[in-house]
């Protein structure tokens, strides 16, 4: 089935570029957008993240997988400055990010979503969307007082928000409170809102958690769409079918470290990954020792 699939121009380009890469943890990519070096985060005595080297290829969909507690979300938090590592350096688009505060990352083109959806339930859907736009004049209080200063920009933002809502099938919910959306719709809204920042790298933390199968298909299409518009996607996911379906490259974490990298096909055959997910002794009889 895989062999018959046709890939979009962007997908083929990403896959061709990644095909030349070594299938080892920390492999070098031809055009990385995100590069992390010896990033380490400890919580008390527990090492949550210990990434020696990671590169994420520009214009690709990269999946970050691993068993629960592998440090995937912590790694996301570190990359977006929501948490500070004990040691480590990382670059985004050639710029060093260690000293950058979390609210600045969005303006630089790096935007994230959350595992537990953070739609702002008491704002309307369209207000959620408008909030996402960066560089708003009216977000300075002295400009906010004078409608004339921000109305024109607001109209542009609204137009962009509406076209995004239409793309994500939320146009009919425009003026509803976000709290009245279903769980899946909230995921869509959060993704659409993140796109309002005009990102170059979109980091999705479990976009499929709690989403019904029908909506999963459309979410898949939306994520592919992001790549086909030139964005880079890095996402954490447990749904292996989805990972296999849409990602160009897969990075596997376990116990804070990166244990494998490769194309989805490589990874599903990799014994280290199977060990990490199922335990090293899977398939053996439990009674063996007796």
């Amino acid at each position: 089935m895989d062999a018959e699939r046709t890939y979009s121009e962007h997908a083929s380009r990403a896959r061709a570029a990644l095909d030349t890469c070594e299938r080892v943890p920390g492999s070098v990519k031809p055009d990385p957008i995100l590069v992390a070096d010896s990033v380490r985060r400890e919580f008390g005595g527990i090492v949550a993240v210990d990434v020696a080297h990671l590169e994420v290829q520009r214009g690709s969909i990269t999946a970050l997988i691993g068993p629960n507690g592998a440090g995937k979300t912590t790694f996301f938090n570190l990359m977006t400055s929501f948490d500070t590592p004990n040691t480590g350096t990382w670059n985004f688009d050639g710029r060093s990010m260690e000293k950058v505060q979390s609210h600045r990352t969005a303006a630089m083109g790096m935007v994230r979503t959350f595992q537990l959806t953070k739609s702002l339930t008491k704002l309307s859907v369209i207000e959620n969307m408008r909030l996402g736009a960066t560089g708003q004049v009216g977000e300075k209080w002295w400009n906010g007082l004078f409608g004339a200063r921000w109305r024109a920009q607001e109209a542009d933002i609204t137009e962009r928000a509406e076209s995004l809502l239409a793309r994500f099938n939320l146009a009919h919910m425009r003026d509803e409170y976000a709290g009245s959306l279903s769980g899946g719709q909230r995921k869509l809204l959060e993704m659409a809102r993140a796109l309002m920042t005009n990102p170059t790298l979109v980091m999705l933390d479990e976009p499929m958690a709690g989403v019904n199968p029908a909506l999963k298909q459309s979410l898949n299409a939306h994520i592919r769409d992001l790549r086909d518009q030139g964005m880079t996607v890095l996402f954490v996911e447990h749904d292996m079918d989805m990972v296999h379906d849409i990602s160009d490259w897969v990075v596997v974490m376990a116990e804070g470290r990166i244990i494998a990298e490769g194309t989805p096909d490589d990874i599903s055959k990799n014994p280290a990954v199977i060990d990490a997910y199922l335990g090293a002794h899977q398939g053996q009889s439990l009674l063996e020792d007796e």
Partner: protein
Amino acid sequence: MDWTLIIENSLKGMVGVNAVYFAVAAIGMNVQYGYTGLLNFGQAGFMACGAYGLGMTAHYFDIPMWWGIPLGVLFSVLLGLLMGIPTLRLRADYLAIVTIAAAEIIRLIVRSVKFKTYFGGSDGINNFSEPFREIGTDIGIQQSAEYGFWPFTFTGRELWTLVIGWLVVALFGFLVYQLMKSPWGRVLKAIREDEDAVRSLGKNVYSYKMQSLILGGVIGTFSGMIFALDRGSVQPDNYSRDVTFYILTALVLGGVAKVTGSIIGPMLFWGLFTFIDNFMRQIAEDPIKVGNFTILQSTQVGQLNYMLIGLALILLMVFRPQGLVGNRKEMAFDGR
């Protein structure tokens, strides 16, 4: 029982000076609590900044009274920074603790003997509001003459404060309304719900919370100024914790996150307060006795009134949590 008097006083209470300074302070608290979700329990501290800013011009600096306005604003900006810098990065509860403590510290400092030369100690500062009264006289309001129509009859002295006071209410009400419609207000409302989401979209949450705290505080400062100008004096114990909580009660009564709520709330609060007070005093004048036991003595009226206000707040929270004009829908969704 004189119902005419009770109703007259209640209606006057609704538009009186108390309602005015409560409304201004409530507009400020609404910015912080209603729109941004900041629990500022130290609004009385900000009010003291304004009142003492005015008072100190006469008592300590010996400069024209009008300098007290920028001085009070400066004090409250400093107070906002002092409270906000250590706490706004932390969870909301810490701000609540720090603000309530900060307001008490201010009150204890200004009433202390040590700093009597600056703040006048527990006697406060008196007789400094003449320049304010003079403007009223200059435009033709006679201080002791009666103005208005039933039931709203006021002396010229009261009238002048009320005119200025309601103008200030209108000004800040309009200001806050405009701001909350703007993208700036949208960021605040989003912070009220989820800081991390807002941060991930590239907004400097810390800075916005600080702006909100200071803006609300500066508005509260003007409330303190109105109160001080009306009395012509500043007393430290007028700025204690309970003032903050009555203002909060009035705000919740009207409805949070609505400008109209922060104005109607204090009006109703004082209307209701005056009504219950007058009603009970009339009962106490001719007390009902059961044997040797008097049902209500006039000395008990004050305390009982505050108890009833507390009861009213409890009932309100149970049956109408959005207040009188609040948006039920906006309040109904339970966050995450």
